[in-house]
């Protein structure tokens, strides 16, 4: 497996080298001010990609625990970005603290100990019920639902949904034992390349916005070009998965569409909270949640499709 992994990461690093080369040439050629800003942002994004890919590479090669920790940390930063711009009140402090200090560690601990049954219900059942209880004990009824619901949303999206990516390591797929890391690689590669390719196609050919008020940068040209090419790449990666090429293409398409919806929905959430970016943590990209928004929708969809059609309990 490690040889396959090295080949795959070799490919990703080659791709990044190519991107950095293109970015370098573009920076020398560009003349207009608007173009300069776009290229500067592009190069900042590429630089951040090096760091993110490097982190993933190290985590994958070290093993399961570090990979789970990496996703737990990603959940932590995403939840923090979400709740930092959510108008909760001081009375919600206990619910907010429980989301961070109780449910993030617990959810990822359940993955680390292979407790799939509780993993699936911890947040939708137990956290869903517990969080409003913690808030109601403070006795403040004003805006109770508008205060409580976003905490539940935030925990669902940034912890429960994102944790389905490392939970792929739990699936028992006959004939695929010990290779689940490759499934996680497949998911992350397809979902992130889809984002990148949608961005590239959108910049090159984008004319018709899909939802101009929600996300002015998402265009039909970007979506179709990005979705088709990311699906093709997913199909081309069939040999690292338990799927046939056609199945791999179908699952990649599901990942791409779910990821697109995630980007759209979270963009609407962000705007309804009055922000343009979730944060400033990753230069060029915005916040961590700007990078993980598509993962939060794609991970559960891919997890459950794979679980239903390919895994045994």
């Amino acid at each position, binding site marked *: 497996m490690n040889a396959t992994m090295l080949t795959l990461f070799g490919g990703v690093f080659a791709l990044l080298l190519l991107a950095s080369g293109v970015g370098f040439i573009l920076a020398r050629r560009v003349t207009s001010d608007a173009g300069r800003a776009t290229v500067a942002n592009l190069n900042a994004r590429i630089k951040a990609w090096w760091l993110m890919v490097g982190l993933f590479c190290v985590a994958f090669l070290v093993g399961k625990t570090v990979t789970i920790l990496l996703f737990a940390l990603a959940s932590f930063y995403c939840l923090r970005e979400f709740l930092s711009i959510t108008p909760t009140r*001081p009375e919600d*402090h206990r619910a907010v603290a429980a989301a961070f200090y109780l449910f993030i560690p617990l959810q990822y601990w359940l993955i680390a100990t292979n407790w799939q049954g509780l993993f699936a219900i911890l947040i939708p059942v137990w956290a869903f019920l517990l969080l409003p209880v913690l808030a109601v004990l403070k006795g403040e009824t004003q805006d109770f639902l508008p205060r409580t619901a976003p905490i539940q949303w935030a925990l669902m999206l940034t912890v429960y949904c994102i944790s389905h990516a490392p939970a792929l390591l739990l699936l028992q797929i006959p004939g695929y034992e010990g290779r689940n890391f490759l499934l996680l690689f497949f998911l992350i590669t397809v979902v992130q390349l889809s984002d990148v390719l949608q961005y590239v196609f959108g910049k090159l050919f984008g004319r018709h916005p899909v939802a101009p008020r929600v996300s002015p940068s998402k265009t039909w040209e970007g979506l179709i070009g990005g979705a088709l090419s990311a699906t093709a790449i997913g199909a081309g990666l069939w040999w690292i998965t338990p799927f046939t090429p056609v199945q791999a293409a179908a699952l990649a398409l599901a990942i791409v569409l779910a990821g697109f919806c995630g980007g759209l929905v979270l963009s609407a959430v962000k705007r309804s909270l009055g922000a343009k970016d979730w944060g400033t943590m990753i230069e060029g990209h915005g916040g961590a949640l700007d990078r993980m928004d598509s993962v939060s929708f794609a991970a559960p969809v891919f997890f459950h499709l794979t679980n239903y059609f390919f895994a045994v309990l």
Partner: protein
Amino acid sequence: MIADLLIGLTRFLVGGHPRWRGCLPEARQRIYFANHSSHLDTIILWAALPKPLRRTTHPVAARDYWGASALRRFVAVKILNAVLIDRSGVDDPLAPLRAALDQGHSLILFPEGTRQAAPLPAPFKSGLYNLARAYPEAELVPVYLTNLARAYPKGAILPAPLTCIVNFGAAISHADGCKDEFLANARAAVCALAEG
């Protein structure tokens, strides 16, 4: 080193990055005055200043809280460089503040006097006015701390990791006009930073 550790931990938990909106971090005598909503305010605001400025900037902290145990006193006095004041008001409570200003140092002041749960500050107490009158050469810089009331409200055991931002505004003019007018202006300058 303990200071770096404390600042690192605070940064990881609640961020607290500075946004210099109306002035720049300059080495001149200043009285920073801010809204007060949590015990982290003192650390966050002080840590938002560049390191060279921290040496000559003293947060003003209440003796009844920060002097209550040996550990708190150590953190306040040795690490944060704080001056402790008596809120009971027996002697002249501003005396230690004047001593710091007389050396040409800067102060961090929370003029509400006590922590507030609401996003906007309560009316200011008169200490800021008296200091402004006595030290006309010190710049009066309003500061607004976001999110701290939610991150670490009164009575909470642990701070929740919500990102806080330290907004530094433009210096306000010195006490021309009556006391109430000056204090209302000072409070309005802090409130104005709460938007945007």
